[in-house]
């Protein structure tokens, strides 16, 4: 069924179709519509789930983890300050192997107060052991929620679905909402290998000495390493059933490209327009939109970028004292490859400043005019 819905509601529909059983969430701009619609769906019976109206984001994740360990499929959503407040519990989810799925609306962290988009909030959590998907369209958001439950529950690792504030969360697009019975066929009920039950009592998360902790974390990493392939497999399966492929990356015109933008989020779609314009001018441009960020899609990035002479990575974030985070990770992925592109790093759009076709024009002009990356950060649009 096709419907015009906002990005936030695509998250809600994804959770509903995935038959989430327990939702614990706390409101924060610009996530509120996600939980408001889910609240309505629970109230009118469209979704058979318990909605715990917790008193903070930290409690939201704590409640989700308790429910997950009890054997229920859980979902929540947050943004920026809320995600930061949950930080302790994000580590808990991954280390405790609870496959919660969460929508995070990328919003700039205070101070000063900002409600506009910026990737620092989700990227600050990249070490917690969560799978991270960056989405660029409402359709992709809905589809990715369903896929995320499947992937997470297979490896027992939580997933985060990331949307740009307002540019994606509040934009209305036509979305094909799949039929429930088809989603049920794709995503069976949650059946965890362990759970809290008096029939088979265990203590979860007790004191763990140096004799054991490392092996438990080794196992988490090993299971994370299975995720890229799993994303491909479940992505192809989704394509067979619903006609839309969900992979690790979205490569646009990269095969013969001499110059590629590496992007994520909604800027990843703006980049396509820029690519088309450059192509019209005779420049063989391409766009590599990274969708799966954790685990990092090393194989895909290496195979696509090693054939490209120049790469411009766009970051809507920064790791202070270092450089843009996608830039760092792409550079490290390409290090040691027999053929390496020249990699340029650009930072744009912090705090919700627009990233437009002109931003990409500026990036392309700069990168194409230089043989080497003279600076590790090129700031786009900053009034210096």
């Amino acid at each position, binding site marked *: 069924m096709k419907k015009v819905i906002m990005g936030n509601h695509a998250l809600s529909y994804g959770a509903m179709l995935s038959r989430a059983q327990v939702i614990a969430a706390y409101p924060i701009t610009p996530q509120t519509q996600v939980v408001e619609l889910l609240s309505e769906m629970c109230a009118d019976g469209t979704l058979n789930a318990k909605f715990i109206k917790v008193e903070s984001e930290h409690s939201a994740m704590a*409640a989700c983890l308790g429910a997950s360990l009890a054997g229920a499929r859980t979902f929540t959503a947050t943004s920026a300050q809320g995600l930061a407040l949950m930080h302790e519990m994000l580590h808990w989810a991954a280390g405790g192997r609870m496959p919660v799925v969460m929508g995070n609306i990328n919003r700039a962290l205070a101070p000063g107060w900002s409600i506009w988009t910026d990737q620092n909030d989700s990227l600050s959590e990249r070490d917690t052991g969560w799978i991270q998907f960056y989405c660029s369209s409402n359709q992709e958001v809905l589809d990715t929620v369903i896929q995320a439950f499947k992937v997470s529950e297979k490896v027992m690792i939580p997933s985060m679905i990331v949307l740009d504030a307002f540019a994606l969360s509040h934009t209305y697009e036509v979305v094909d909402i799949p039929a429930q019975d088809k989603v049920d066929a794709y995503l069976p009920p949650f059946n965890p290998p362990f759970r809290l039950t008096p029939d088979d009592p265990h203590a979860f*998360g*007790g004191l763990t000495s140096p004799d054991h902790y490392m092996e438990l974390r080794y196992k988490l990493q090993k299971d994370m390493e299975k995720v890229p392939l799993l994303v491909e497999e479940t992505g192809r399966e989704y394509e067979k059933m619903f006609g839309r492929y969900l992979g690790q990356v979205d490569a646009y015109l990269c095969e013969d490209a001499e110059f590629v933008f590496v992007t994520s989020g909604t800027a990843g779609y703006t980049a396509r327009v820029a690519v088309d314009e450059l192509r019209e001018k005779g420049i063989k441009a391409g766009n590599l939109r990274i969708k799966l960020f954790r685990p990092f899609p090393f194989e895909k990035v290496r195979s696509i970028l090693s054939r490209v002479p120049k790469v411009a990575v766009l970051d809507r974030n920064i790791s202070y004292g270092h450089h843009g985070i996608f830039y760092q990770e792409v550079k490290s992925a390409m290090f040691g490859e027999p053929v390496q592109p020249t990699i340029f790093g650009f930072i744009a759009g912090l705090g919700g400043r627009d990233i437009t076709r002109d931003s990409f024009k500026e990036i392309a002009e700069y990168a194409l005019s230089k043989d080497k990356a003279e600076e590790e950060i090129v700031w786009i649009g900053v009034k210096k």
Partner: protein
Amino acid sequence: MTKERKMTLTIPQEELMSPGHLACQGCGASLAMRLALKGLGQRTVVCIPACCWAVIDGPFPHSSLDIPIYHCAFETAASSASGVKAGLEMVGDTETTVLAWAGDGGTFDIGLQALSGAAERNDDIIYTCYDNEAYMNTGIQRSSATPLGAWTTTTPVKHYKKERKKDIIGIIAAHGIPYIATASVAYPEDMVKKFKKAKAIKGTRFIHVLAPCPAGWKSRPEDTIKLARLAVQTGYFPLYEIEDGEKWTLNLKPKERKPIAEYLKLQGRFRHLKEEEIAWIQKEVDSNWERILKKCA
């Protein structure tokens, strides 16, 4: 003749806590868990945040309880329990009791927000605070449950605690939950009865158990029960229940309350107190007792 007499136990015989756990000798908290589980039975899941019991239970991959345990983050006893209960219900288990079992630190201080949230929502959990009156697990630092006059490592003798113990029952009572009770390990029949009673009630139930700690109170391990009894007999820790936010019932009214000095002198953490300071504490105990008595009238 003793040979003809039968052993008649006044509390259930079944043990859901095994020996071999890591509690100190004479630990009030371990007895508290043993008694609580006799009241609740095996169909119970417990959420234990950071506290002595997180260690007492034993290290991975072992446990000393015959019920499932979710060892959770420090401030999340109530929020984790709310989530567990919701999860269990959604997977079809509406019978299992969900117990949050936290120390005074995880209840009065860092866990208070989550507890208030759960109580306001009337989430269907039994929240038990076993109170040894300080952050004992991290080495005896003061909490807002530490009593007036006590030494702790962060309230050394020259700066002993001058703030009153936080009135947790008053705070929780303001949420209007269906059942609140205080209990002491020296009164096991009363304690087991209260857990059994709580189990049969739906909504948020809060039980505050006094759990003497020889290590932190600087008392003799063999005095643990005596202290838990004196706390009640002096009126320092009255045993009472509050049902539906309105009906206050005193469970034990000593004919004549014992002087607080008798309780204090068995504990090294009060050794520095002078006569006038003990008199001050006696006044505080008296006025608190009168206040509770009035509510229970």
